[in-house]
């Protein structure tokens, strides 16, 4: 079997004790793409990754990674991919350099190029000056960078990143993003990453698959996904909002009450803001923004907007809107 795509899954399914963690997944990831698997914890992202990297066997179906079958050609799959795990997997009683050296031996990187390759990947993640230090003295971000470098050392065609910035502080996260973008631009490598950070998926990925309960609920570019929401979002806090008046306006697409604020989806928010403010009555505060992936995500994974559980998501979105500095 051969395949022109970097990854092609064919009805990939994984059950744990009869429960479907990944449900009949078929998707194609092209060479050179940065592809995101976005979903809440427990959606099945990591299980998909574990199957694609041959760490667990599918219950049914299969996948081709670089043209190799994950069921039948595990060693070839493994040689052609790099993996950066969610949890640290470098040896902390070894130095950064020793970790890379060990990796080169395990992946049978030709002796004559080992040193130059190690130098190259260390440079890529700016760890050249710390290579002789024990990994236990590294910060979380440095460790993740070392592991990204390690994942690239044997020149894999596909690099898998499982929640690459989980548990990192904002600066470290920002830096990891830079490296991932650099990789995507400079190296000829396909990147598949899982994340539950909307912002991360939005910033890094060419295409995103939104995964919920083991299934793909949406798959497109971040831009196209956001178009689905169909407009900007205006949030108004008002003591006595005149919701009926808002509903009557023809440019308003959707009106909802969320925790005492009115959430209005509008095409061209800035143009229509005055009209809306006039219609709604007394106003305490107003917040206008463009749709984010989070809105898309909530749209597909079942409108949790109405219940109080969405509050955290809202706060996070406000925060992410700020950190993006728009």
């Amino acid at each position, binding site marked *: 079997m051969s395949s022109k795509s970097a990854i092609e899954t064919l009805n990939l399914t994984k059950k744990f004790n009869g429960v479907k963690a990944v449900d009949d997944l078929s998707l194609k990831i092209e060479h050179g793409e940065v592809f995101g698997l976005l979903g809440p914890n427990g959606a099945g992202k990591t299980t998909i990754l574990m199957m694609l990297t041959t760490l667990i066997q599918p219950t049914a179906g299969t996948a081709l990674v670089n043209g190799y079958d994950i069921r039948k050609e595990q060693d070839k799959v493994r040689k052609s991919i790099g993996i950066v795990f969610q949890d640290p*997997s470098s040896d902390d009683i*070894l130095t950064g350099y020793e970790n890379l050296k060990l990796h080169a031996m*395990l992946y049978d990187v030709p002796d004559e190029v080992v040193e130059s390759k190690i130098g190259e990947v260390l440079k890529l993640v700016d760890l050249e000056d710390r290579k002789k230090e024990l990994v236990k003295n590294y910060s979380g971000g440095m460790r993740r960078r070392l592991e990204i470098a390690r994942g690239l050392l044997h020149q894999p065609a596909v690099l898998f990143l499982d929640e690459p910035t989980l548990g990192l502080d904002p600066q470290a996260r920002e830096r990891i993003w830079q490296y991932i973008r650099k990789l995507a631009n400079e190296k000829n490598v396909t990147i598949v990453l899982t994340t539950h950070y909307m912002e991360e998926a939005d910033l890094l990925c060419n295409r995103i698959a939104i995964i919920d309960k083991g299934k793909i609920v949406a798959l497109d570019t971040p831009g196209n996904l956001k178009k689905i929401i169909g407009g900007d979002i205006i949030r108004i806090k008002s003591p006595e909002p005149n919701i009926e008046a808002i509903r009557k306006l023809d440019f308003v697409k959707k009106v909802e009450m969320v925790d005492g604020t009115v959430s209005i989806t509008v095409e061209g928010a800035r143009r229509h803001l005055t009209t809306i403010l006039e219609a709604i009555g007394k106003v305490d505060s107003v917040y206008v923004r463009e749709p984010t992936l989070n809105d898309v995500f909530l749209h597909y994974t079942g409108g949790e907007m109405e219940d109080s559980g969405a509050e955290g998501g809202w706060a996070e979105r406000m925060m992410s809107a700020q950190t993006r500095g728009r």
Partner: protein
Amino acid sequence: MGREDDERPDEGEIEMGALKAIYAMWYREIRVFSREKSRIVASVINPLFFLLIFGGGLGNIGGFGTVGGEVFIFPAIVGMVLLFTSIFFGLYIVWDRKVDFLKEVLVAPISRLSMFIGKIVGGSTDSIIQATLVLILGVFIGVNYTPLSIPLTFGFMFLTTTILVSIGLIMGSRMESPEGFQLITSFVVFPMFLLTLFPFDKLPSYLVPFAYIDPMTYAVDGLRGVIIGANYFPVYLDAVVLAVLDCIFIATGTYAFQKMKI
């Protein structure tokens, strides 16, 4: 999960890859070992006390034939160092798995056999280095080494430590957490060691069956034969039993590694 039975394109290339993988595993162990100097020193202190206090006391009670008590238990102390170091080396993969380093090795395109052999070579190197420090102490209690006894001693140590590292790795690959270490020390390691302290023919009859199934019996008997000439079984028989046990445990261990989950 049958990772070994993939098609192999080029036999020669794979052989080299396997050797490199074994070397990689060994390289890691030696690097780690060399950074734990305090552990090495500590590992010699305990045997020293055993040798001087326990061996000295036993010697005064008498009944060891031509050699003194310290000298008689000396091979058992060498065995003890091999036993504790090797078994715990093996068990430590529980910890490797917990701190996630093992993941890196488990996802590498190397066979579980290479992985297992690499671990054995690494662990054996550790414990033979530590046992050698104890062997040097032997000179001070009157052990005479000969040009023949030294290579034979190392031969026995190698046969023994490979069995023990395998046992440790097998148990470690089945364990979920390091909490079981204490149980294994109490129920496996200590009895295996204690049985070797006494002359085989002086053991009470209810202990004899246990001594027969204790691999350390043959290891220490063999060492007694080559170091001080006080063996109970013929030395070649000890070697054969150990070699057979090696085959069994290495095969079992490779199987256990193949079944090991991440």
